[in-house]
């Protein structure tokens, strides 16, 4: 019997949802396990970094890396896995675009450390002790990875062959990707393994989207009883559908929640936040500066709303610290 292709999974700055989504393959995971050998998956199986180091270069057919890159440990593992795998797949929004951890690029590293180890109301750390790179304990030195100033997408650190979008990617997308990998039918390198149309294209409420939006005000989901059948944007709910790639099956809209943009933009758009900003703003009814300002109070955090998963991948990348 010929040797089965080897694959690995790894996580960086992420919540663990992407790891869950692999298990969400349900019984299909048995087909995957039958077809490939999983040789590295720290969250589920007992492999060590040294096992990876011992592999010859390109020993793995593919490695699925989720999470953004924030620490030197994540950076080092990403570089190592790049060497050991023929194909690197950025798995999920954080590896693809920076994801929720990427929102930390709107504050500085020092602000994070001061808050988390000092000012956070739940803290009991009167001396504001912060983690150090090296500490001595019981006569031994313990080293911690460095916490970078900037959160990065995976492809800002290593070269990436494919992207599986989503927070997390859906089981169908993962199954399709594994099938394409095994059958050698992967698209050109650099592709996002999802359709290249906007979410509105597969939205069940598509028919109710007016040609011209006339938005008097914006509402956050908890401020309004949301009609289950009507286009969310037409109801004044900021929905990122027009600037977001399809492929999820409009799951959030199905749950009566607006799209928050986790699949990132289509290939025609460079900067997802700027694009949805443009679409949302031009749909407003107001024509005078003062009225526009009043309506915009309904969007108190434009950067967080429009770049919820994509600050590190945006054109500006992070807040400038003056």
């Amino acid at each position: 019997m010929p040797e089965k292709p080897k694959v690995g999974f790894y996580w960086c700055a992420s919540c663990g949802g992407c790891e869950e989504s692999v298990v969400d393959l349900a019984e299909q995971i048995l087909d995957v396990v039958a077809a490939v050998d999983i040789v590295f998956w720290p969250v589920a199986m007992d492999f060590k970094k040294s096992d990876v180091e011992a592999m010859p270069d390109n020993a793995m057919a593919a490695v699925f890396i989720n999470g953004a890159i924030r620490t030197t440990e994540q950076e080092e593992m990403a570089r190592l896995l790049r060497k050991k795998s023929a194909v690197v797949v950025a798995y999920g929004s954080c590896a693809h675009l920076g994801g929720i951890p990427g929102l930390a690029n709107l504050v500085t590293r020092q602000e994070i450390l001061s808050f988390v180890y000092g000012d956070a109301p739940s803290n009991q750390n009167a001396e504001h002790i912060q983690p150090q790179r090296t500490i001595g304990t019981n006569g031994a030195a313990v080293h911690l990875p460095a916490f970078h100033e900037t959160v990065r997408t995976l492809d800002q650190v290593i070269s990436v062959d494919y992207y599986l979008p989503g927070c997390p990617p859906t089981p169908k997308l993962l199954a399709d990707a594994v099938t394409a990998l095994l059958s050698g039918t992967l698209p050109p390198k650099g592709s996002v393994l999802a359709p290249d149309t906007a979410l509105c294209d597969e939205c069940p409420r598509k028919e109710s989207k007016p040609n011209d939006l006339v938005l008097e005000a914006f509402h956050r989901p908890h401020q309004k009883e949301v009609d289950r059948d009507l286009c969310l944007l037409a109801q004044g709910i900021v929905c990122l559908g027009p600037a977001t790639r399809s492929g999820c099956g409009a799951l959030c809209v199905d749950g009566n929640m607006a799209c928050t943009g986790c699949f990132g933009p289509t290939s025609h758009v460079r900067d997802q936040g700027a694009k949805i900003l443009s679409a949302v703003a031009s749909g407003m009814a107001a024509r005078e500066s003062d009225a526009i300002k009043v309506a915009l109070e309904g969007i108190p955090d434009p950067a967080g709303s429009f770049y919820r998963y994509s600050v590190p991948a945006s054109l500006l990348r992070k807040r400038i610290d003056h």
Partner: protein
Amino acid sequence: MNEQQPQPAPSWEPRIVAFFCNWCTYTAADLAGVSRLRHAPNARIIRVMCSGRVDPQFILEAFARGADGVLLGGCHPGDCHYMEGNYKTLRRMELLKRMLAQFGIEEQRFRLEWISASEGERVKTVINEMTEQLRTLGPLALPRRFADWDKELEPLAHALASTEEAAHA
């Protein structure tokens, strides 16, 4: 830790990317030219058919590629050649201004002006004012900042490269 602020080179001059609509502001800039009005040479003018054609991505990209300021000029409200273009611009740019502030870009670096075809003098005033404001603010220098931010990746990249070399030796 505050990042090091880019220090202007002695020869530094503010760079403004100016998107002017074909029907009003670009014509006004043309008028300023034929009227031999002198203004600061710091604006690179890009003619677009309508201020409404200016995608917010263009403005972010101008900053990301080294502009110190971006100026957007269109027809006065009610005068748009395409009826609604400048209203859309106004809405988008009000929202964009809020977002730029969240990214730490000072408000004087982005300016929206309505300048009609007859207001050549206004083109001169706006470009001169903006140039002076940017001179006070100093360079935005995003390309240099991006390179500075990425220096934190160098130690590990270098360490791995030298291990690699040692392994091959």
